[in-house]
């Protein structure tokens, strides 16, 4: 019933809505318990911070994608825009000696532009986002390859590492950035007119038009925001690795979509919450980290991730079913 719509709920409803998320939280808890038993280093403070650090770029992109999917659109270009963002910031720092601040801004600007480009086509010409962002995925990846001449870029200025390697207290800066992005996305969705419009357009586009909602502006916004988030993720990643490469994060798209969908956002649009995506991101990150700790090879990891995603969604389904 109300599980996905925390907005405007009185506390009694809120409790039941959190309770119906029980399945999802349950999955995360089981996963954590399992990993802390099997991998002895899993439940240490430093490893947990490490999980958050590794989750940061997936989480940042997932926040953007959540808005897109709630709006009943899709963005398949996030992983490539991420690479593009990383490449742009790295090139500006390395080849042009640009100030860090400007280089980061430029990278975010490129993400915004690419996202807005998709949004423009989807909103103005009613081209399905599936096709358009698939093409954008290819454009952005190709562009990054050309910009880098298929080479890796190393030797970025030391202060740039703060974003991806720095810590404030025990917490990685990248994780704080992810938290901020989640918070902003949450506030947009739950407390603003724009957020209500995103749910409205995703739930019933025709009714949204009749009600005078600027459907084009909403579609443009979500895809632009997603582009912004992807470029930000790329900047964070470049800073963490202190390097950039056009083919990095090739397989991140799957993790990002999985994080959103595991989090209970409906691919049909109109339903979903950021808190779900947060949990979804943590589940994915724990799986990746745990499998690494257990020393499982990359090919088996792929298999395991697929299986665990199915399991998590299944648990969520059972939880919801019992609710209603």
């Amino acid at each position, binding site marked *: *019933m*109300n599980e*996905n*719509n925390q*907005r*405007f*709920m*009185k506390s009694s*409803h809120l409790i039941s809505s959190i309770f119906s998320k029980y399945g999802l939280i349950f999955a995360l808890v089981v996963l954590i318990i399992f990993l802390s038993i099997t991998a002895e280093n899993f439940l240490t403070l430093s490893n947990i911070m490490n999980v958050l650090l590794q989750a940061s770029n997936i989480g940042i992109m997932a926040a953007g994608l959540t808005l897109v999917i709630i709006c009943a659109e899709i963005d398949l270009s996030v992983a490539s825009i991420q690479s593009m963002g990383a490449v742009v910031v790295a090139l500006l720092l390395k080849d042009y000696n640009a100030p860090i601040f400007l280089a980061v801004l430029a990278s975010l600007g490129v993400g915004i532009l690419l996202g807005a480009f998709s949004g423009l086509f989807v909103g103005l010409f009613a081209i399905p986002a599936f096709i358009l962002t698939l093409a954008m995925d290819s454009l952005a990846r190709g562009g990054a390859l050309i910009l880098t001449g298929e080479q890796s870029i190393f030797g970025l200025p030391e202060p740039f590492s703060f974003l991806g390697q720095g810590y404030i207290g025990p917490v990685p800066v990248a994780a704080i950035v992810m938290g901020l992005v989640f918070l902003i996305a949450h506030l947009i969705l739950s*407390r*603003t*007119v*724009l957020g*209500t*419009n995103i*749910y*409205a357009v995703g*739930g*019933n586009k*025709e*009714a*949204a*038009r*009749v*009600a*005078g*909602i*600027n459907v084009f502006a909403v579609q443009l916004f979500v895809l632009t925001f997603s582009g912004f988030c992807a470029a930000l993720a790329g900047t964070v990643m470049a800073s963490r690795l202190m390097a950039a490469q056009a083919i990095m994060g090739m397989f991140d798209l799957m993790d990002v979509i999985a994080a959103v969908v595991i989090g209970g956002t409906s691919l049909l649009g*109109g*339903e979903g919450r950021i808190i779900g995506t947060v949990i979804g991101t943590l589940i994915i990150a724990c799986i990746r980290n745990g499998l690494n700790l257990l020393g499982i090879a990359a090919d088996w990891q792929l298999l395991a991730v697929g299986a665990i995603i199915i399991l998590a969604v299944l648990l969520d389904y059972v939880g919801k079913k019992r609710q209603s």
Partner: protein
Amino acid sequence: MGQPILELRNIFKAFPGVTALDNVDFDVLGGEVHVLLGENGAGKSTLIKIIAGTEKKDNGDFIFEQKAVEKHTPFLMREMGISVIHQELSLVRLMDVKSNLFLGRDLKKKNWLLSKFGIRDDAGMVNHCKQVFSELGINLDPNKSVMELTLSQMQLVEIAKAVAFDSKVILMDEPTSSLGPEEKDQLFRVIERLKRRKIGIVFVSHILEDCMAIGNKISVLRDGQLVASIDANDAEIDTLIKLMTGRTFQERYPKISGIIGETILEVRNFNKEGVFENINFSIKKGEIIGFAGLVGARRTDLLRAVFGLEEINTGKIFINSKEVKLTKPRDAIRLGLTFLTEDRKNQGIFPLLTVLENLLICRFNFRNKSENLRLTNKFGYINISNAYKISDEYVQKFGVKVSSLADKISQLSGGNQQKVLLARGISTHASVLILDEPTKGVDAGGKVEIYRIIEDLAKTGVAIIVISSELPEVAAICTRIIVMNDGRITGELPREQADPETLMRYATS
């Protein structure tokens, strides 16, 4: 009339916060139309859904042809012989009529080999389809695509589908709510034939005249309880209203009028090829004009175009004597217009959003600088407590039956959803309201309340345009009536001259 086909005993059903059905007994006899009456939210649709298997009862016995039924799924119910004609029709729009009639059970070729490969027998399906149609007196081409049908034709196809399934019980939830007089007669003729085939019919409607005309037995629900079950011949409208509401109404269709001012909206020379032509009309502040006509007269298309929902070939709109650019709904709303759609499900509600959001969505997007309770700040950040206050006022004013403003709107009964949409329509303080079937699915008491709200608005100078297929409604609330036929305006008369015969003459001229 013999044994009942379907017997329900002590049916109990509760949703969080409401008891929808409180130990209800209900029988359906073959060859009989059993009317179910009640106010909005009384539990009628819930009872229909329980019979159809789409909603589970909490308690009670379900006996079909003298056998207790334990398992309830929509599929099993249909196999058993229970069909539903929902108000929101469920045909597959992209397929033709015959394929819809046999959906899921296409006839196979008689030839053994071909049937093994699952080859469809189109000719056989056409024949069978024609046979069912002729038995029911329906005149339709089985090869026509469903998209080309009118709403009432789709309804007839649904009924034919139920008959082709050999249904013994057919449930109809508000089948007449947007039918014109002729289509209604057609539907009633089909129902008479169903009765002759000994099919049992459950019929829900808020149009009491229809219930009296077609019903054999009338059961009245109030707040989930069965308060009476009487023979239709003994029923009188006043008694039924009393049973439904516990109140009496002096007048069901009070004559209302506003305080007339200057001309506010003028539509000049509207043309849309193949849809409407040469349309000119204007409306003054405080006026309430009605658009009358048969179904297919293009009233909805015209007013959708005025609101910017449909493109036109030529035409100008003047507001307060100034020509305005109005090409999309956003323009219209900014210029002070508002539009209530007749297609609640597809163009009206946001099923996944709360009652509060559904009600305030226009207010959120079109800020009114003079409002005393601020709904949002300039960044579009919502003030939740004010949102509650404002929507609560509207909910009270329209008498929406809802347990919490944070409930999803899809949990409300149909009539209550309609009231929320009306409230949304007036929430922007528009100066011209375009209302397409404003009281669709609203109960008799709720209608009178809505007429009063319309009157209050007209008294403050709001201009109101109404389309309604309920003639008494048009004649009562509209001070002037414009009649359309086939995309043209064929007449215009003051309320005093608007008797059904005159209206009909213009509507067919």
